[in-house]
């Protein structure tokens, strides 16, 4: 069950230096841009970020990278932000690279009480080194451990007031699985509707996974990332006449 927050800084109040944080999104698509911006304004460092990418240069999680708030990143494709390689080269950040499917599966395992699993992906490659191989039905599989986090910040489309979530197109990506795998789950949404307005069959993330909700103020558009216009009472009245 979720509590609705007005202020981003309050929604992020539990985040402390040194924590492990899952951040939804495939690049900027489906990334919780408002919460990331909130995090950039918070005095924390030494974070471990679990996310497919670290945004783009100076965008999304790229901002936190420039701020040196990130000590370690676990993901699958940091190439999308050239500054990650540069920071790695300078020794400012540790990177743990996982195949994209392994990254997703490890979080799903963490959220579902599975300690680890065996996948065929990566067997015989550099990314399987030191991980342990087991033969199952005559085929080699590599052991991968589950991933969990202290906090997940995610992006969904709509929430109801209980915290049930639905997503929008390919902005779904890693968000539902991260919602299951962290102690505290904070979701940023386009709209909060009354309980009962989402059909019980279409809910993707049931409310038991979600702790906090905020309405997105920073959103991805065709023209890039913009701040959503904040409606004042005057706007509303003008609009309704």
């Amino acid at each position: 069950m979720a509590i609705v927050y007005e202020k981003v800084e309050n929604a992020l109040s539990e985040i402390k230096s040194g924590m492990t944080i899952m951040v939804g999104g495939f690049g900027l698509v489906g990334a919780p841009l408002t919460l990331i911006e909130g995090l950039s304004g918070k005095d924390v460092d030494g974070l471990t970020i679990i996310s497919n990418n670290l945004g783009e240069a100076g965008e999304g999680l790229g901002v936190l990278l420039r701020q040196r708030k990130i000590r370690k990143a676990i993901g699958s494709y940091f190439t999308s932000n050239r500054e990650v390689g540069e920071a790695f080269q300078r020794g400012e950040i540790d990177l743990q690279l996982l195949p994209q499917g392994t990254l997703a599966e490890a979080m799903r395992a963490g959220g579902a009480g599975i300690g680890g699993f065996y996948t065929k992906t990566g067997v015989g490659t550099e990314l399987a080194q030191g991980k342990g191989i087991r033969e199952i039905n005559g085929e080699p599989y590599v052991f991968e451990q589950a991933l969990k986090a202290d906090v997940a910040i995610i992006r969904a489309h709509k929430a109801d007031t209980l915290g049930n979530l639905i997503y929008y197109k390919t902005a779904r990506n890693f968000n539902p699985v991260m919602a299951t795998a962290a102690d505290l789950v904070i979701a940023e949404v386009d709209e909060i509707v009354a309980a009962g307005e989402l059909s019980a069959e279409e809910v993707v993330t049931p409310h038991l996974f979600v702790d906090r909700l905020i309405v997105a103020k920073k959103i991805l558009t065709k023209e890039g990332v913009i701040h959503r216009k904040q409606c004042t009472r005057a706007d509303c009245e003008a609009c309704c006449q």
Partner: protein
Amino acid sequence: MSSIENNVQELIARRAASELKGPSVVNLGIGIPTLVAKYVEDELIHFHTENGLLGVTDVEEEDPNLVNAGKLPVGERVGASFFSSAESFGMIRGGHVDVAILGALQVDETGRIANWAIPGKNIIGVGGAMDLLVGAKKVIVTTSHLTRDGKSKLMKICTFPLTSTRSVDMIITELAVFSVVNEQLILTELMPGATLEQVRESTEANFLEGGFE
């Protein structure tokens, strides 16, 4: 990109498209593979993208939240479905994708590929390549035959780290098409304008010459 390079890519993509037969589910990698879709007419071919969509089609109206694995805007066809990354890679690893078309930096003479890392550069990205290689029922590689400095990409041994120990099923370049059978390259087809001599000269890897003519 020069228009020659462009033409080469389109030539390869068109040839790869002709390998696809419906009903089937096809995942297209970044680069040349993405170009394949526009040469496919068969409505029984459904494109899967690992960021969570079955039923990729041409973009009609650009939506920043509707993209493919290369983060390019796409469309969704009638009967499409969206799902999470965990479910999407379950489909891939679980053998539910019929064909993956991937790019490669190098191919060795047993048909194994390297396409994710270059020694001496930071190894910071792998994406879904390893999953697609182990999971897709059939893997087709589309690549230029030579590197920019004129070296063969089809090598005896890959000098870059392998993406998987699994050999791909087919390699399509601007010069030739190879099948991989029992971890051996077999030249099965010359591309338009290419000669057998040219292929022999441009290929470091050993290969058998199939009875193509």
